[in-house]
């Protein structure tokens, strides 16, 4: 190849990079820059003698220790709620995805119908759906009535304004984020591998554990991340279905620090702590369970 040809060749190879430029520019302007602004704000100090919401640039690292001391409980609770939500969504979403992708393989109509049902919640607004859960879980609602009739709930108990309601609402709202990636993964699963498992003395359960589940791990990984990350930062379910005392999540605190207390450095510090905590957890998780194919 001549020099000119080689130059022509590599120029064609580089053409693709121009297409990602708009995306990079967009993210730099609306993500990287705001994160830097937030990071700077989290170190601001109050203007001496200034009013509410008056801050000036500084390097006030004590903002971080302050918010951690004040709000470590809601922070931990957020991760606990997010974890329970993720596990619940996995336990509900995996069987649904398996049913649609593996058991109903070839039954196009049933598959399509169930997929629409999985996605259907997205057709209604997030806030409206959460509001509806408030009614479902209310004291004179169907769920509480049934549970009390079956003596599974003491007569004076409530479901609204409890941790159960918050986790239930989040599980419902994030379920499609769990189900769809697992479905997409299981749909590509070679059914002949399941036959090979049963041919090689594995019971249906063993075949699932040794063949199907390991092969669907990329889907499970994507689904759990897509559920856990937004759940950890959620504040709509917590504020609509919670009680603002022992169900408070970190998203609510950030929201009230920012909009009500106008304590921008604290809100920014909390947001940054949340971001870093999620990043560390996710990286540890992916390192532990991630597959090479995904990374």
């Amino acid at each position, binding site marked *: 190849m001549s020099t000119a040809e080689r130059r022509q060749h590599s120029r064609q190879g580089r053409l693709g990079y121009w297409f990602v430029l708009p995306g990079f520019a967009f993210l730099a302007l609306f993500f990287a820059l705001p994160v830097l602004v937030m990071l700077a704000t989290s170190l601001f100090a109050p203007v001496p003698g200034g009013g509410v919401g008056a801050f000036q640039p500084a390097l006030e690292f004590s903002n971080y220790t302050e918010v951690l001391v004040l709000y470590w409980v809601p922070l931990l609770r957020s991760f606990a709620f997010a974890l329970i939500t993720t596990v619940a969504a996995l336990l509900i979403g995996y069987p649904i995805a398996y049913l649609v992708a593996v058991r109903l393989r070839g039954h196009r109509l049933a598959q399509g119908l169930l997929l629409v049902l999985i996605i259907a919640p997205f057709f209604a607004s997030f806030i409206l759906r959460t509001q509806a859960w408030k009614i479902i879980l209310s004291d004179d609602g169907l769920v509480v009535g049934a549970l009390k009739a079956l003596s599974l709930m003491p007569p004076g108990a409530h479901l609204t304004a409890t941790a159960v309601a918050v986790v239930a609402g989040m599980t419902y709202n994030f379920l499609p984020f769990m189900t769809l990636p697992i479905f997409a993964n299981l749909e590509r699963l*070679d059914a*002949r*591998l399941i*036959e*090979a*498992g*049963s*041919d*090689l*003395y*594995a*019971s*249906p359960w*063993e*075949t699932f554990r*040794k*063949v199907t589940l*390991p*092969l669907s791990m990329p889907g499970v990984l994507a689904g759990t991340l897509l559920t856990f990350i937004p759940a950890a930062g959620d504040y709509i379910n917590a504020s609509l279905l919670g009680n603002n005392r022992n169900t408070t999540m970190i998203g609510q605190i950030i929201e009230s620090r920012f909009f009500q207390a106008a304590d921008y450095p604290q809100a920014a510090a909390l947001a940054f702590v949340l971001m870093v905590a999620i990043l560390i957890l996710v990286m540890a998780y992916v390192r532990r369970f991630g597959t090479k194919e995904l990374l």
Partner: protein
Amino acid sequence: MNAVGSMSPAPPETGTPATRPTSGGLQLRGLVKRFGDFTAVDHVDLEIPPGGFFALLGPSGCGKTTALRMIAGLEFPTEGRIFLGGQDITGVKPHRRPVNTVFQSYALFPHMSVIDNVAFGLRRRKVHDARAKASQVLELVELSHLADRRPQQLSGGQQQRVALARAIVNEPEVLLLDEPLGALDMKLRRQMQLELSRIQREVGLTFIHVTHDQDEAMTMADIVAVMNEGRIEQLGPPEELYDQPETVFVANFLGKSNLIEAEVLGEDGPWLTIAAGSAQARLLSDRCVSRQGRLLVGIRPEKIAIAPVGSDDEGRHGTFADRDGEVWNTLAGGVVSAMTYTGVSTEYQVEVPGIGSVEVFAQNLAGDVLAIGDRVSLRWRAKYTFGLAGDEPISAGAEVEPG
């Protein structure tokens, strides 16, 4: 045609341990599988003795793979029963059957190393020293050096051998092979054919090999069952099937046959005399499915000797006996209408008046090849002639797309 394979005497009584075969013997009794309106397997009776290499040969859609899947337990028969070693396994779940399959697609577990794939079945049965046993079998298929690779890092032939190792390591009573060489190129396929035969002899398991490739079935199997439209047409050792086909389908599917419509004229000792057009010929009555009426008379193309007119038997027609008492059938007045020279042999199409087109394979021993338009006479030893039922469609099995 309701061919019933009877390789060994009547099946032993089930349940009584004294008469139960010690290993391996597989029986299919009246096996039927329907998918909706389509009957994939239609009343198949088969007895496969332990320790042999058995081939189920047929065109695609003939039901051979469905039969195999029923033996593996991956399909449940609509009717009929399956016995293994004298025990009824019809309702036994696949993972409880002492049967393993080498799948056409290999179906290797992509998330496991080669050695873990091979040890999979042993581990499920909690066999002691699974890894060591798996290593031994990997040695048998000459893949020890690739034990820690993933299947997708191997070539097609290597994957094929992993699939084989993964099945035989379990020492099943029956090993099922579903077109295992279909995805390999010609050269590798020949090599694997030899290797499969060697491994079968070494491990001594019962192999049931499903294939559409007649060469593969004939070179590897001790016994071949030819399947067509869900039924077994004929069953026997490859030489027997080739030498004495009993149906038009077998005659055409297994190699090539010249089939000529004829009428039985009479019987003379072991011989039947038949008339085809203006020609007469003889065939042995025990190589003929019926002794009267209309027949399809067959002769394999390589059994026919072709000679230019002008040589010693010019003008002779019909049947004659030579000095050694060998009986020959002769067709005179043929004209070469097409020829294909392949080096080692030449394939001729000869038009014979009143008979039609006859195919002849001649070995190029002397090198004098005939040309198109040459006038020739054809003759063959009468004992190689076979007779089939006259009411069968003459091209059955001839135009079947293999695969």
